[in-house]
C-alpha cells in the first residue's frame, strides 16, 4: 500500500516536472524561434536566455505582451506547455564572454 502511494506520488511529480526537452520542441513548433532564435538569444525579438525572467513575469508577458510580440492565450499554449518552454530557456547555458572572443574586440 505504501509502495503504491509512493509510486503514485513519484508518477505525479514526474508528470508535473517541466520538461526542457519538450520545451525545446515547443519553442520551435510554436514559432518562438521566429523572433527569439532557436536558442532564445534574441533576433527580431528580445533575448530570453540565458537567465530568463522569473516565471511569473515571463508567463504574464506571454499572455499579455505590451510590445510587438503576439499574445499567446491558454487556448494556443497551455500552462503546462509554457512551463516546459520556460524549463528549456532555463537550460540554455551562458555564452562565452565577449571579451574572450578576439574578433569582437578589434
Amino acid at each position, binding site marked *: 500500500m505504501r509502495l503504491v502511494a509512493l509510486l503514485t506520488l513519484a508518477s505525479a511529480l514526474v508528470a508535473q516536472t517541466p520538461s526542457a526537452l519538450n520545451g525545446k520542441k515547443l519553442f520551435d513548433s510554436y514559432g518562438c524561434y521566429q523572433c527569439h532564435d532557436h536558442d532564445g538569444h534574441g533576433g527580431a525579438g528580445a533575448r530570453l536566455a540565458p537567465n530568463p525572467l522569473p516565471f511569473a513575469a515571463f508567463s504574464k508577458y506571454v499572455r499579455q505582451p505590451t510590445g*510587438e510580440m503576439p499574445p499567446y492565450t491558454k487556448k494556443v499554449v497551455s500552462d503546462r506547455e509554457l512551463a516546459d518552454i520556460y524549463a528549456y530557456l532555463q537550460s540554455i547555458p551562458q555564452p562565452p564572454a565577449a571579451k574572450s572572443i578576439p574578433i569582437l574586440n578589434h
Partner: protein
Amino acid sequence: MPKSLGRRGFLKGAAGGAAAMAAGTPAAQAQQPTVRRAAGVPSAAARADETGPVSASVEVLTADRPGADFMVDVLKTLGFEYICANPGSSFRALHESIINYGGNKAPELITCCHEEQSVAMADGYARIEGKPLAVMAHSTVGLQHASMAIYNAFAARSPAYIILGNTIDATARRPGVEWYHSAQDAAAMVRDYSKWDDLPISLPHFAESAVRAYQIAMTPPHGPVLLVADSDLQETPIEASAKLRIPKLTLSSAPAGEMAAVSEVAKLLVAAENPVILADRAVRTAEGMKLLVQLAETVQAPVVGGKFPSHHPLNQAGGRGLIGSADLIVGLEVPDLWGSINTVRDQLHRSVQTYTKPGAKVVNISAVNLDIKSNYQFFQRYPETDVSIAADAEATLPYLIEACKRLITPDRKRVMDERGRKLAAAHEQGLERARTEAAYGWDSTPISTARLSAEIWEVVRDKDWSLVGGAPSRLWSVDTVYRTAGGGGAYGVGYSAPGSVGAALANRKYGRLSVAIQTDGDLMYAPGALWTAAHHRVPLMSVMHNNRAYHQEVMHIQRMANRHQRGITNAGIGTTLTDPNIDYATIARGMGVHGEGPITDPKDLAPALRRAMDVVLRGEPALVDVVTQPR
C-alpha cells in the same frame, strides 16, 4: 504604286504568305483570310526571296548607318559605362549598333537573365557611382518584367536610365509575336513610378529627349526615366542629308532650402536641449557625408540612421529611444517621418503610439514633395511638422551649418559640448553592448546572424570594402559613403541579388572588395544575376543569410494565427523554403560562381569566407551558403 514589303518586311520569317499579300494584292482581296504557313518552314518562294536576286518589290535594307548608330553616339556622350539587357527584338538594331558600331565599350553590354535584374543592377550601380547605368528592355513583356525593379528604384530615388524598344507603326510589325510585344503607349504601365518618359519620333527628337532624360534622372530627387526607342527609328538608315546634333548636357544644381526657412531650423537646432537628427537618405555623396558630420558636430546633436560614420561619437545607431526625450527632431530625407516618430502596434488590437513628448518640434527637409505622384503610396503617412522644407537635404546642409554657426553663443557652445560628451559616452556603451549581445548564441547552430556579421567583418575589415547587399552590424566601421548601398527602395523582394551585382560592377574599377549579405528568399527571384557576375567577371562575395524561409511572412502568418487563436504550428506552410532545402552553393557553381556550403557549424565559417575572398580578390564572384538563425 510601288510594291513594298515595308522597311522590315524582307525578314518576316517564313513569310511566303505575307510576301504574296504584299505583292500588289488589291485592298478588297487583302481582307480575305490567308492561309499562313508554319514558321520555320519557309516556302520555295520565300527561299527564293531570301537567296535569289532582289526583286523590284523588295526594299533593300542593307545600310551603312542605321538610326541606332546615332543613338549609340548619343549614349556615348552621356558617359554610360555599361548597358544592361536581356536581349529583345524590339531593340535589336540598337543592340547590334552598341556591340559593333560602338565597339561594345562605353557602354559595354552586360548580359542579364531578366529585366528585373537589369534595372536592379542599374539601381545598385547608381547607389555606388551616383549616376545612372543604362538599361535596354523589350517593349511590353520586358517592361512588365522590369516594373518591380523600376518601382524599387523610384522609391529609392535612384537614377536608372531605361531605353525601351517598341514598334509604333502597326504596318511595320511582323505578324504574331511582334504585335504582342508592341504598345501604343509603352511607358504608361510604369508612369506612376518613374520620373519622366518620352517617345521620340525622329533622331533629333531622340537626341534631345535622351539628354533631357539624363538631366531629369540626375536632378534630386533622382529617379528612373524611360526613353522609348521606336524600332523603325533604330533600323531606318540615317539620311545622308540629315543634320544631327547632340545637345549639351548640363546637370541641374540640386534644390536647396529657402534661406528664411533654413534660418528658422538653425534657430531651433541651436536652442534645443535635446535635438535628434534622423538622417535616413540625407547623404547622396562623399561630400554629403562630410557635411552631415559637420552639422552634427556644430550643434553636437545625435544622428540616428543614414550614412553617418558608424564609429563617430555622435552616431547613435538604434537610438530611437532618443526621440522620446527629444525637444527637436530634424528629419533629413526620411521616407517615412511619421513612422519614425510614431508606431503602430499590429497585434490583437491595433494601436498607435507616439514617441515624441508634448511640445517637441518636428522639422522635415525632403525633396520627395518636389516629385510626388498619387497612385502608388510610397509617400507614407502625412507627418505633422513645425517646419517643412521642400528641398534636397544634402544641398541644404551647407546653408544650415553656416546658419547654425552664426547663432551659437559661448553659452550654447558649453551646453552643446556637454551634450556631446554624454552622447560620446552613450556611443561607447552602445558599442560595448553590441559586443556583448553578439556573443549570445556565438556557437549556435544554425549560425547566429551576429556571428555571421562578425566573421564577415573580420575578413573584410583591412580591405577597401563595400557592403553592397544587406546591412552591417554596429561593430563594423562604416567610414565613407560607398561602404553601404542599402536595400530595395520599395522593399520589393528580389532586389538584393542583382542590386549587389550592379553595385559590385561599379566598385570593380576602384579595386574595392564588394561583399553582400544575401538572403535566400531574395536570391530565388532572380538567381541569374549570379551568372551575369560570373560571365562579366564581377568580383563579389555573396554570403548567404539562409534562414530557409520568407521569414517576414512566417511572422505575419504567426500573427494572424494568434489573432484568430488557432495555434501557429502551420505558419510554415507557404512561407518556408524547406523540403527540399535549397543548395545555393550548387546553384552558384552551376552558374560558374565559386560556391561553398551549406555551412552549419560556425567553426567552418571563417575558413570558407577566406577561400571565397581569395576568389573575389582574383576578380571573380563567390558565394558562401550559411544556414542561419532567422534574424
